């Protein structure tokens, strides 16, 4: 897909995100908006996905296709919107987000059989381990497709992340592309103040990863280019880590760059102000 088209999809996804969070007056818009360009680039451009008649087909095993795991499950709005816009489930279902009897739980889960979701996440630090397991499964199945996982930068404070960081190079899990959303914010404030995990690149390099640093994580062309470069590095005995610099709340001016919009929903006025900044390119649900 052309960059311009991907950007249009991203604008619609951002509309979905603020509307979903507004609709239930809860959820996490900040990180969702910041990772929108990445998820759109993955699902609408980079990932090899099983499709029939131009529509994605979901099965739990995902053999023969690339897989994506969201470890920082609180940014579920962006994943739900991208999955729906891609065609995994009906777009109007986005309106049920975080409401009773919905398949769109606050944090993603396969428990409600939502197409596109393969693991529960929300309790942080587990997703990279899960992705490693799925990558090992692909190797055992002689399946040469790739496994992606997204984590938060605050999430790097979880000890299990470093167990996985040690494991993947040791076992040469080179069909794994991990991405850290480097937005520098977490609930209690700037990550550097709460618990500084400085020099993540040096840390992962020291653990044996192939590390890429991408400064323009909200520039679609840069994100797509980085994802292709990462793919070209796969299969060379090392897992790949992309440190993706993003802006929390990107795309909605008053939400940008502050941890205050980590887990707060906009009111009616704020919603209108946000939507005025985002093109309705695919039609609201």
């Amino acid at each position, binding site marked *: 897909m052309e960059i311009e088209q991907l950007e249009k999809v991203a604008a619609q996804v951002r509309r979905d995100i603020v509307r979903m969070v507004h609709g239930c007056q809860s959820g996490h818009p900040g990180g969702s908006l910041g990772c929108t360009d990445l998820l759109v680039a993955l699902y609408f451009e980079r990932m090899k996905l099983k499709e029939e008649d131009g529509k994605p087909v979901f099965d739990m095993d995902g053999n023969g296709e690339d897989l994506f795991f969201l470890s920082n499950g609180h940014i579920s709005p962006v994943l739900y919107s991208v999955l729906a816009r891609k065609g995994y489930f009906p777009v109007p279902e986005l309106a049920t987000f975080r409401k009773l009897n919905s398949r769109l739980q606050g944090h993603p889960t396969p*428990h409600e059989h939502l197409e596109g979701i393969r693991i529960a996440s929300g309790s942080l630090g587990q997703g990279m381990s899960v992705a490693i*397991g799925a990558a090992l*499964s692909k190797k055992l199945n002689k399946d040469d497709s790739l496994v992606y996982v997204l984590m938060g930068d605050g999430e790097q404070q979880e000890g299990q992340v470093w167990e996985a960081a040690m494991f993947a190079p040791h076992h040469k899990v080179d069909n794994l592309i991990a991405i850290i959303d480097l937005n520098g914010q977490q609930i209690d404030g700037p990550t550097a103040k709460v618990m500084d995990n400085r020099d993540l690149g040096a840390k992962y390099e020291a653990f044996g990863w192939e590390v890429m640093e991408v400064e323009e994580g909200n520039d679609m062309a840069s994100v797509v280019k980085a994802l292709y470069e990462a793919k070209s590095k796969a299969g060379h005995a090392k897992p790949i880590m992309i440190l993706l610099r993003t802006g929390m709340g990107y795309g909605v001016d008053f939400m940008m760059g502050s941890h205050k919009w980590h887990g707060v929903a906009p009111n009616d006025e704020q919603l209108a102000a946000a939507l005025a900044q985002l093109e309705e390119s695919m039609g609201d649900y």
Partner: protein
Amino acid sequence: MKKYTFTEKKDTRSGFGAGMHELGQKNPNVVALCADLVGSLKLEPFIKENPERFVQCGISEANMISVSAGLTIGGKIPFATTFANFATGRVYDQIRQSVAYSGKNVKICASHAGLTLGEDGATHQILEDIGMMKMLPGMTVINPCDYNQTKAATIAIADYEGPVYLRFGRPVIPIFTAADQVFEIGKAWMVSEGTDVSIFATGHMVWEAIQAGEQLEAEGISAEIINIHTIKPLDEEAILKSIAKTRCAVSAEEHNRIGGLGDSIAQVIVKNDLVPQEYVAVDDSFGESGTPAQLMEKYGLTAADIVAAAKRAIAKKK
């Protein structure tokens, strides 16, 4: 009282290792994972024949559980192995989110459960694992009684789709069940029929219950002994059928009396058919260092304790 004899003693963990060896040969999807305890889990024969299907995780149990969850995606059947303490308490949230809530086909196989790991002491003697695991929705909890039954259970859980906690131990104990048994998950095993008291035992306590049954018989008391190898799902029908006849119950387990087999049975009794029940279990405490035999005696988990509990239960009958 049905007579049980044995010619050999072995540890239940070796039954697990033997089961894994057989699974390695007949099920190409079975993958073994271990957190630096290959020898203790008796995995060497599996690893020797299937090196590509063994994943050494190092001392990183949390990662091991979540990697196991990921391995199921693509159709693998991961057996995640370590000591029971590190397989449950240490990684409860990983099991809860990545395995149970995600509905993953992971087999958590835990050795050195209970007091009988002995000298290592309370840090390693988990007595709360059954409780933690049975509280997770969708989790199957199995605690077999000897080498043969552990081997059969290991093979059986590979064919069952869903998360399983399989608990076994370190001490060498008599082999008294059949080598060719077919293990039925959730189906209690009638060890010996009786009429005066029902003894529901699990794991290492089944052999103690058999010895207790013989002592009771010598005193003219007829004990019905039932092996509850599957604590969840619980065979309620077998329990109710037995207490309908005997009108009193004893539960026996190498576990805290809170949250274990005894409480599961008590729920069945309270809900359906009120009869007296006595617990043989660790009385809400941690263990300590000692030989397995010393610990079982000090913490009240011997045949003599079951005999005393049976008499108390009978005395309370209306």
